[in-house]
């Protein structure tokens, strides 16, 4: 049972007109893992996330989640099955309060009676207690990222896709954020797949990294393997990043 990957993406292709944004990409994520997905800008990471979470319909290929073929499922059904995500460009419910936003997610698994408990719990975990009554419109980027994470957590996912959730955070903030994800991973057994450009986070968090370039998977392996992979350095990391790491 545990041997079977929780998420299996097989040969997924997504095109926009002539542009092949994702090209026969395959990827497996095991239960309990934190997997990083990196690649140059425009490599197709967000597009792949969209194809997995049901927002886009891939032209080819299949997506399995918990052993079920969820290709072409609608997003809400995929969420019901236990997968949720955040967005690269934050998509808050502008005029709703933090609490209500989280509540929308919480209704996924909870009914009117116990939804409030879940909301309270998630808000506490994500450290949103101070701003729970604030309207999302007034929040800064960092808070919005937390709210997005919170509402996704409220759906009680078994797996979470995070799209550049750490972008725009400085080193210290990033460390706190990474601690939260690690805690969720260990205590709540949530599997993560994260897209990130901040190497500090990718390297420090992920057990395994998959590299996407021009829609194709070009490498996969442990952080160490990846940071020494010539092709990855050439396409993505650049010499300086490697240099900085080696220091």
């Amino acid at each position, binding site marked *: 049972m545990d041997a079977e990957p929780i998420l299996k993406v097989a040969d997924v292709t997504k095109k926009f007109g002539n542009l092949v944004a994702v090209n026969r990409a395959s990827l497996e994520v095991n239960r309990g893992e934190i997997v990083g997905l990196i690649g140059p800008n425009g490599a197709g990471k967000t597009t792949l996330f969209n194809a997995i979470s049901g927002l886009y319909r891939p032209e080819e290929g299949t997506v399995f989640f918990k052993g079920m073929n969820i290709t072409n499922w609608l997003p809400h059904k995929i969420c019901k099955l236990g997968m949720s*995500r955040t967005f690269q460009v934050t998509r808050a419910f*502008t005029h709703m309060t933090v609490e209500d936003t989280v509540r929308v997610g919480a209704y996924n698994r909870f009914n009117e009676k116990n939804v409030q408990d879940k909301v309270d719990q998630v808000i506490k975990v994500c450290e949103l207690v101070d701003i729970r009554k604030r309207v999302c419109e007034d929040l800064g980027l960092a808070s919005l990222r937390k709210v997005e994470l919170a509402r996704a957590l409220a759906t009680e996912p078994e797996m979470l896709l995070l799209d550049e959730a750490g972008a725009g955070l400085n080193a210290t903030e990033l460390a706190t954020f990474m601690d939260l994800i690690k805690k969720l991973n260990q205590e709540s057994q949530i599997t993560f797949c994260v897209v990130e450009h901040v190497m500090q986070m990718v390297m420090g968090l992920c057990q395994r990294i998959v590299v996407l370039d021009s829609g194709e998977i070009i490498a996969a392996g442990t952080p160490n393997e990846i940071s020494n992979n010539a092709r990855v350095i050439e396409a993505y990391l650049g010499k300086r990043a490697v240099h900085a790491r080696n220091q």
Partner: protein
Amino acid sequence: MNVKKFFNPRNILILFGVGIALVIPLIFKAGQYTMLLMTTVLLYAILASAWNIIGGMAGQLDLAAAAYLGLGAFTTGTLLIRWNITPWVGMIIGGLVATLLAMLIGFPLFGFKVKELWYALSSSALVVVMQSLFMMWNEVGGPTEKYLPVGTSPWYSLRFNDYMPYYYIMLIILVVVLLVNRWIRYSKLGYSLLALGEDEDAVEVLGVNSQSSKLKALAIYSFICGVVGGIFASIYGYVHPAFFDTSMSMEIAILGIVGGMGFIYGPALAAIVMVSFREVLRASLGSQLAGLYLAVYAIILIVVALYQPRGIAPLVERGIKKAQTYFVELTRGRRADIKSS
């Protein structure tokens, strides 16, 4: 429901309003004109409150109220004229027929994620389409009005010579619609709809089925419009394709917007203020310079929309808050007085 929570200033205000509405006709022995006016106001209040579910909460700017209203009216009217079926039954069937049409239209529209303005325009087109169809369908519609017979019992044919019964029927429906609004607003559906109005994709990945949520909202809205359509036909005593009126649909949406989108009582409040205000204008300026009263009405509408873009409900809300703090301070002050004495 928590009793203490229930008796907050807002609910007390609402209860007070309903209470006044209940007794006004009796206390003031209102004449027929006043009764008709208040009935009309209630009619718009109901429609605008129903619109609030699809427009205010789900953020779908629906302009098809008159399509559903007209369909309800024609169903009720035809059933009465042809088979002598009482409008009490007719308006329920009318509501269901309206819902059926709404589902037929809404299923693909929501399925294909037609949104915002485009949804508004297609729903507005629906009204025109219905009017054309009923204009050509001579058996049921056609250009000549179909008169609703009064029959032997006004209660059976819902054809009163006096507006009092209509008024109370409308009042009951309004209260029900407001309760439905409230119930939806603080339920799973309501939160989903509110979020849907903001960002659809983001809601879907949280496990909300956007199509079915919107369809639910549309169904409730169109059903209410259809039912009200049945009463509408009864009040005016005939059915005619002119019931499919694009500007009436627009007006209902405007009331919803001006009232304060997403506020439960906002649209009803706007209907009460704006509709009666317009009638006062019509009655006082209407005969002086043709069109003047509408110009005044339009200017007021523009000014309200420009300076109160979130609607008049937030204004009331602020008032309530002020009153609340005032009362709190008052009681506190009194306590202090008691202590000091």
